[in-house]
C-alpha cells in the first residue's frame, strides 16, 4: 500500500465537502494503520512520512462523537488540522528557506562573540 500527502489531503477535503462520511474517513485511516503494523505501507515521498502519518492519525478517530449524532470535532477543527499538515512541497520549501537563513544566523552569533 502506498500513501501520499495528496491522498491524505483528499480525504480531509472530501470530509469537509461532504463527499465522504467521517466514518468512512476513519475506516480509511484505520486500514492504513493496520497495514502499517504489518509493515507494508510505503510513504511517497519517504521524506513526507511524518506529515502523512500525522494526517492519517488525525483521520483515525475523526468520527468521534460526544453524544449520539454529535461529533466532537467541528468542520473548523478539521480545517485547522488540514492546514497544519501543510501543502504538498511545503516541507521542501521550508528546508530551502532554513538553509538560506543559516549563514545570517552564524554571522549574528559571530558578531555577538566579537562584541563580548
Amino acid at each position, binding site marked *: 500500500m502506498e500513501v501520499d500527502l495528496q491522498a491524505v489531503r483528499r480525504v480531509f477535503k472530501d470530509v469537509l465537502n461532504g463527499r465522504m462520511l467521517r466514518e468512512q474517513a476513519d475506516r480509511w485511516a*484505520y486500514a492504513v494503520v*493496520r497495514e*502499517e*503494523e*504489518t509493515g507494508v505501507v510505503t510513504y511517497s515521498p519517504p521524506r513526507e512520512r511524518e506529515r502523512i*502519518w500525522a494526517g492519517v*492519525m*488525525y483521520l*483515525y*478517530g475523526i*468520527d*468521534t*462523537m*460526544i*453524544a*449520539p449524532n454529535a461529533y*466532537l*470535532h*467541528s468542520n*473548523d*477543527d478539521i480545517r*485547522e*488540522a488540514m492546514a497544519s499538515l501543510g501543502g504538498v512541497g511545503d516541507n521542501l520549501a521550508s528546508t530551502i528557506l532554513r538553509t538560506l537563513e543559516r549563514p545570517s544566523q552564524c554571522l549574528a552569533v559571530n558578531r555577538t562573540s566579537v562584541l563580548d
Partner: protein
Amino acid sequence: MTVDDFHSSIDAAASDIGRRPDATTERSALAAVVVPLRQIPATYPNQRPSPGRLRQIDRVFFGPFFREKYGTGGDKALENGRIRYYGPVQPANNAGELAGRRYVHEFDTMTGCTRGWHETLDRMGNVRQVRPERHNGMTGYYQFDSNGRYKGSW
C-alpha cells in the same frame, strides 16, 4: 469502576498485529554483527519487569517502532508489563468542557499483543470517554465523570 479498571477489564479487541514471531530468530542471526548500545541487566524468566525496567527495555527495543508512531504525546510503563503510547491531543474548539481526543496504543511486552482506543479528554486532562477499537465494526463509547467514575455507555 474507574478509567483504569475499565482498561484492565474490557476486551478492547486485543490484536496480535504487533507481534513479531520472527523477532528472536532475527536478533540471534544479527547478534554476530550488532553491537548493543546499552547493556540491559538480565531478568528471571517468570519475573514481571518493573515499570522502570520496562521503560528501559522500551527505550532500547520497542521505542523506535511504537513511540515514533503512537507515542508523540508521551508513554507510560504499567505494572502489568504493558506500555501505553499516547498520541497528540487533537483539539476540539467547540465541544464545551471537552478539549479533544487522542489515540492510545497499548503494547503488552509479555504477550506481544497490542490494542488501541480513542480517548476524549476534558480541559483538565481527565479522560471522559473511551472508544475501543473493535474489529467487528461496532463503535461503542464508555463515559466517565470528571472524577474518573464510570457513568455508562452508548
